[in-house]
């Protein structure tokens, strides 16, 4: 059976290959010849008209499809005097005639001088199929694709030969896939023999997409081998889609994880490395987002051309603004509270209230809109996965930030001093490290990272004075879950929580999933009070 299909396809291939040059040559057909063929449309009964349509299509001329379109909609007329086919346009009591081929003005005539070319339903279908064929061979891939999609909707069996020819000639793989699918749908709707239908089911099944599944479900109820094949193909698509669904959820999870990572990584420095409970951390993120907003506003008013670079400009600024405020907070409040974590918590909570209210006073309580640059908007498909550019960039960005921070902490003098101070303050001080400055700059670094996280997060959420509040609890969860004092723990913690959250969402719902996760973390901390990647050693117990 399949051999037959292959044979048929091969035949069509040869035939269309033979036709292709003719078609190319025919586009240059002379006007008189085309006019003669067009005039044939007005001669004889419906059968003759159908033959004339066939002849017109065979020319492959670009003008044919618009003429046929007029014929199908009943707008094509014939001049009674000389049986010339014309287009008409109402002009007062008379009609203005134009030549359908050349577009030449043929003068004014009274309405009685022309007569409409009648079409019946059969002819209309023929016309539609003919137009389909013509557009299937258009030079524009988008036109070809939409023509194929039209066939997929209409399931018109008469389009099969045209599709076959088009498939053979199609250079674009994507469009070809659509055409093949369209052909299969048309075959299923036709009264072609079972063998063709089985092959068509297989073709549809191979697509493996959600649309293909929808197509197949209309045939799963059929008796006989076709129905059976359809059922089988449908189940295999379903199981494939299940995998895609899982993959999609994981991709959402990674995206959420990267957001959590961005929000938490600054906290991993201030809380994890320095041991400062910074409840104002969320507000540092918020300030970063507002910095982006201000940058975009300035660009909008003074240099609209730079809009695509607004985020790149905002990044260093957000780092400086948030980091600067962080240093200020450290020097004015936190440095008096080292070694008193609960007091630090309360004082920084106070700072967060002040910062929130300050932003609310300056910018207003309503949400501010931060635009997406062109390279961050839109999405693309990988198989059945839909990935938005903004999410992808945020994943990349979070990993870059993570790597950068690792480098700073492990490979620079400043990082070395930071680690020395956090491990043994008095010894570091004895070695000549100016510990107060290291404290201030480390806190500034953590806050600055929170600021650039704000730049990224402004792209996927609302920018409002409460922005930071939404992230603060999650960030603490990530850091505590991952293990304090270990950046790798933060990475693993963020990704685990993000993916677990998104995998639970379809079953438990968004809110319940989050509650379950919180309960899980509460229980997890009972089991491993120091998180996933606990620092080992005896110095931990304070």
């Amino acid at each position, binding site marked *: 059976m399949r051999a037959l299909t292959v044979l048929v396809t091969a035949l069509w291939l040869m035939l269309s290959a033979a036709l292709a040059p003719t078609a190319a040559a025919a586009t240059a057909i002379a006007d008189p010849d085309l006019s003669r063929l067009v005039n044939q449309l007005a001669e004889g009964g419906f059968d003759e008209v159908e033959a004339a349509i066939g002849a017109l299509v065979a020319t492959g001329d670009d003008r044919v499809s618009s003429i046929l379109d007029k014929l199908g909609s009943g707008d094509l007329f014939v001049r009674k005097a000389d049986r010339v086919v014309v287009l008409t346009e109402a002009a007062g009591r008379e009609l203005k005639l134009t030549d359908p081929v050349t577009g030449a003005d043929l003068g004014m005539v009274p309405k009685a001088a022309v007569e409409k070319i009648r079409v019946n339903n059969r002819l209309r279908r023929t016309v539609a199929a003919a137009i389909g064929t013509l557009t299937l061979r258009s030079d524009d891939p988008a036109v070809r694709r939409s023509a194929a999609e039209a066939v997929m909707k209409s399931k018109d069996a008469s389009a099969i030969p045209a599709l076959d020819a088009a498939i053979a000639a199609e250079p674009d793989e994507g469009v070809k896939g659509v055409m093949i699918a369209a052909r299969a749908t048309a075959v299923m709707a036709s009264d072609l023999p079972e063998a063709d239908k089985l092959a068509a089911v297989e073709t549809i099944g191979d697509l493996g997409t959600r649309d293909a599944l929808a197509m197949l479900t209309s045939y799963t109820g059929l008796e006989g081998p076709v129905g059976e094949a359809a059922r089988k193909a449908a189940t295999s698509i379903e199981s494939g889609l299940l995998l895609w669904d899982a993959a999609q959820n994981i991709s959402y999870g990674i995206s959420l994880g990267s957001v959590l990572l961005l929000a938490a990584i600054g906290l991993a420095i201030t809380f994890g490395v320095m041991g400062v409970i910074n409840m104002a951390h969320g507000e540092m993120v918020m300030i970063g987002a507002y910095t982006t907003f201000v940058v975009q506003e300035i660009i909008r008013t003074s240099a609209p051309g730079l809009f695509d670079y607004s985020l790149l400009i905002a990044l260093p600024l957000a780092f400086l603004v948030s980091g600067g405020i962080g240093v200020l907070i450290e020097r004015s409040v936190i440095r008096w*509270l080292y070694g008193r974590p609960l007091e630090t918590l*309360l*004082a920084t909570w106070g*700072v967060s209230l002040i910062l929130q*209210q300050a932003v*609310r006073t300056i910018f207003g309580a309503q949400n501010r809109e931060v635009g997406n640059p062109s390279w961050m908007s839109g999405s693309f498909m990988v198989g059945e996965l839909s990935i938005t550019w903004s999410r992808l960039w945020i994943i990349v960005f979070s990993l870059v930030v993570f790597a950068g921070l690792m480098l700073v902490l492990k490979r620079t003098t400043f990082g070395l001093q930071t680690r020395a101070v956090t491990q043994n303050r008095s010894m570091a001080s004895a070695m000549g490290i100016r510990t107060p400055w290291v404290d201030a700059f480390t806190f500034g670094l953590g806050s600055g990272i929170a600021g650039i996280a704000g730049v990224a997060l402004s792209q996927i959420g609302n920018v409002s004075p409460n922005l930071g509040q939404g992230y603060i*609890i999650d960030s603490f969860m990530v850091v505590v879950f991952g293990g304090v004092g270990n950046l790798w723990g933060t990475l693993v913690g963020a990704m685990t929580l993000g993916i677990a959250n998104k995998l639970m969402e379809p079953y438990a719902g968004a809110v319940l999933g989050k509650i379950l996760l919180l309960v899980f973390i*509460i229980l997890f901390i009972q089991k491993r*009070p120091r998180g996933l990647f606990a620092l080992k050693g005896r110095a931990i117990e304070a």
Partner: protein
Amino acid sequence: MITGFLLNGFDTRARIVVAILIAIALLVPAANLMLPPDHPLHVPTYLVTLMGKYFAYALLALAVDLVWGYCGILSLGHSAFFALGGYAMGMYLMRQIGTRGVYADPILPDFMVFLNWKELPWFWYGFDMFWFAALMVVLVPGAIAFVFGWFAFRSRVTGVYLSIITQALTYALLLAFFRNDMGFGGNNGLTDFKDILGYNVQADTTRATLFALTVLFLALFFFIASAITRSKLGKVLVGVRDAESRTRFLGYRVENYKLFVWTLSAMMAGVAGALYVPQVGIINPSEFAPANSIEAVIWVAVGGRGTLVGPIVGAITVNFGKTWFTGVLPEFWLFALGALFIVVTLFLPKGIVGTVQAFWANRRRPAAPASLAPEPAE
């Protein structure tokens, strides 16, 4: 022994505070109900309700102080227990509405009829009886606190970690109660109450009674807390606060002491919530917000932690300030509150009461060396 334990708590200072509270409980309602409205000492009803609210907060602050000031457990989740107690009371009040609701359903509260629920969920059974609801006000927060504390203290989760997971606890409950299908009215919560024990909740007499009850409960819990902190148990708690490991090495089962005081504190918070709800007339999930818990902590810090009078003074002062600020300068309340957090932690670590006490102690014995009593550490 029990009598001795109780009498022990009734020292001079506690006696004065309890006497003052009882006086307030009697005089304010009297000034509201008995004096004519144009009398200079008349207390208008709105003020009675407002002060009743403050005293409910004071009770919550006392509960926070008991665990934080005396046992070193900084709870950022006490609003959860407060709200749970409030919900238990709110459920009783909802059941009392009966056919007077918008949908006039004799059993189902309005929001359930609205959500097309056919019958009462099992956890609403019994709440038509006051004694049951009153029991739940104490039991539900107590049970949740017990289970939570059982796990947390046995695995020795301490300090900041404990604070953060208490915050996670209340956040999880916040999210849960926001859900409509939880059966607690979703984000609208429970409101539109009519009667409590057959008395109209809007009536002046009911409001005055509720106020008196709130203050009397505060006096009762103050007395209990005073008895506990002055007993041997209280000394062990302070030992846990200041040197947990050492207390453990001395042979005390630290987790049991912590669990006891933690559960008791949660029950107190539950009672506070139950007294709060009929006075304000609504309970909704925003009461669970972690920010509320942290605010309760600052009341304690302002008043002076580690003193029992402190949280009462702090809660009333801060909330009075809040009422005043939101009336006069609504923009600046958060600035003021934020500044309060910073100023208190930086410059007034002992709070108002603690500072005043230290001042008096110094005046009385100017030559004496600095107090040997341990400062409240982390």
